[in-house]
């Protein structure tokens, strides 16, 4: 069943919408959530919460990018469940991710406070400036919280190639944010 058909079920308030959503995207959403929380139960709860949120919001929402719509909700739920203080003990990948992201923060904007949506706009513009391959790798790492090994396997490249792309992209992001920091 394609996205439009599933969304029609949501609009019809047909509970099969949930089942078809789960059949189509359940596994992907679980992997995303599990990458973040590193706990099966929390990941499953994040996915379930995602379906409920979708049920509550469609309609009136009619997502153009249905999977992205679900994934954003799921990622937010997973991040909400994350116990940041104990994340390191649980070896959550998100700890590494935030540390890597720390390298992207230029000293000049370290004190800046950005609204999330404004930062999102800047990040979107930055991502669109990348080569498609580097954008995919960056998003897999920092949006989907994939490990370097997962990314290497997904795209059939070496782990060192993944790390090289990530390293260079982080440096570019740092300089991009530095430039943006002048006017935010």
């Amino acid at each position, binding site marked *: 069943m394609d996205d439009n058909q599933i969304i029609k079920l949501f609009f019809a308030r047909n509970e099969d919408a949930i089942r078809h959503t789960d059949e189509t995207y359940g596994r992907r959403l679980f992997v995303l959530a599990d990458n973040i929380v590193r706990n099966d139960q929390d990941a499953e709860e994040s996915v379930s919460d995602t379906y409920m949120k979708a049920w509550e919001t469609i309609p009136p929402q009619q997502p153009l990018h249905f999977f*992205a719509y679900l994934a954003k909700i799921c990622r937010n739920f997973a991040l909400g469940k994350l116990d940041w203080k104990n994340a390191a003990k649980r070896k959550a990948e998100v700890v590494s991710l935030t540390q890597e992201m720390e390298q992207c923060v230029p000293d000049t904007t370290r*004190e800046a406070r950005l609204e999330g949506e404004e930062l*999102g706009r800047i990040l979107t513009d930055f991502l669109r400036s990348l080569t498609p391959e580097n954008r995919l790798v960056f998003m897999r790492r920092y949006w989907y919280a994939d490990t370097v090994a997962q990314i290497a396997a997904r795209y059939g490249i070496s782990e*060192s*190639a993944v790390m090289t792309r990530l390293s260079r992209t982080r440096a570019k992001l740092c300089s991009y944010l530095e430039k943006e920091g002048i006017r935010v």
Partner: protein
Amino acid sequence: MNGRDIFLGLRYVDEDLIEEAEFGRFSSAAQAFEKNQKPKKRRKLSRTLLIAAIIACLLALAGCGTVIYLTLAGEPWDSMPHVEGADVSREDIQITVVAVSPTELLYQCDLAGFGTEEKSVLYLYDGPCTIERKTESGWEELPRKIEDAQWIAEKRLTDGHYQDWIRWEPYYGRLDAGAYRVTTRILEGQDPFTLEFEITEDMRTDKMELAEELVNREFWHVRETYGKPEYGSLDNVPEEAKKDFTRPQEENNDSFEYWKCGDDYLHLSYNGDQIMHGMMFKNGVKYRLEREWDSVKAPIAGWMPWPDMDLNRLTAWAFAVADARADRTVTRRDDGTIEKIVLRKTEKASYDVDRTFTITEEFLDTPREEIARLLEEQNTNVWLAFDWEADQKQYPALDVPFQNTSPHPIAAVADALALAEKECTAEYNMVVVYRDETAGIWKIEYQINYGHLGYQFVYLNDDGMTVRISSAGPKFG
């Protein structure tokens, strides 16, 4: 803003990017590259990139040991599809030595079947190299003159056959006669390549004579100006790509100024009249000048000391000038001293467009006393601001005993540095001094690999007693 903010901020990126990352594949540039694998006429493309070499040396000279991605503004490649080194099969790469001198090596790289029609771009990697000398017992690495230098000059290749230089002089100096091998990466995403070569006694050049003349001057004042690249005919350039040739150099440093007096020196870079960056060696301490980004009218935020200094960084500049592979005009005064060096280099840009770089070095007649006074007037007792309360929330305190437990009032930055040094356990390569005036707290930030690997923070009160030690960054997990 911190790393977590960015990570969380990603939740707001556009949804098409999220779906692209879930369902997309390496299909555009990479696959296009694979499809373009077909024989083509081989054409040698000289890509010595004089400016990249000189700027890289300047950066090394300036002590910018952090990883620097050097992109030349106005390069006509941005609107072309890109291929990564990781996408190139190792067996398709052939690298051969073309020429050797005691300071550099010219190699040729042939990439089989790369980017037909010159419409694809490959990133080249021009970074640190390792030089080993052949001895009776095997290969032995030469001692480095600069340990912490690590920069990347990012170049872009539009043809599969090119020549470029590996310049080791800033790191290893000039090599004596003997058998050597150099190992360097060349292509991102590929393992390093190793090339063997031999240095003979007769490899001395007039450029080296000039370099030594520059190095051996006891004092100098030099102004270096980069002209905007001039392009030849754009008749054969697609309309969409023409903008890349005419893009203004707004973000670039376009001139540099050096003052040297004995062992001390000062180096500033400018964009127009605006000071962008600077470095200084004064009384045995190395300083970096930070630009005040949020107030362009007040460019100088403070001199921040670095722990080590290698004066070879300065001499690297002289060799960069003298070793430049370009048409060079040297004008001398009546007394034989150098008045001006004009370097001019023409090479092919993409689409076979001629591109000419011009760099002018003016050796000014500034008296030694005036240079000494300028250096003396540089105020190093300055610091950046920070928020003590916010730092306490952001960086957890380490549970370690303090060394500074009795009062030693801090009167100047130097006092704070000396006290903080007793507490520091990190292998840092840069120090930044902060102060919260309201709280009366000093913060000494020790950067590990320029912060890329992490930070250690030592906090002192005005009595010179340590009140907190924290750390952050990947090194500290």
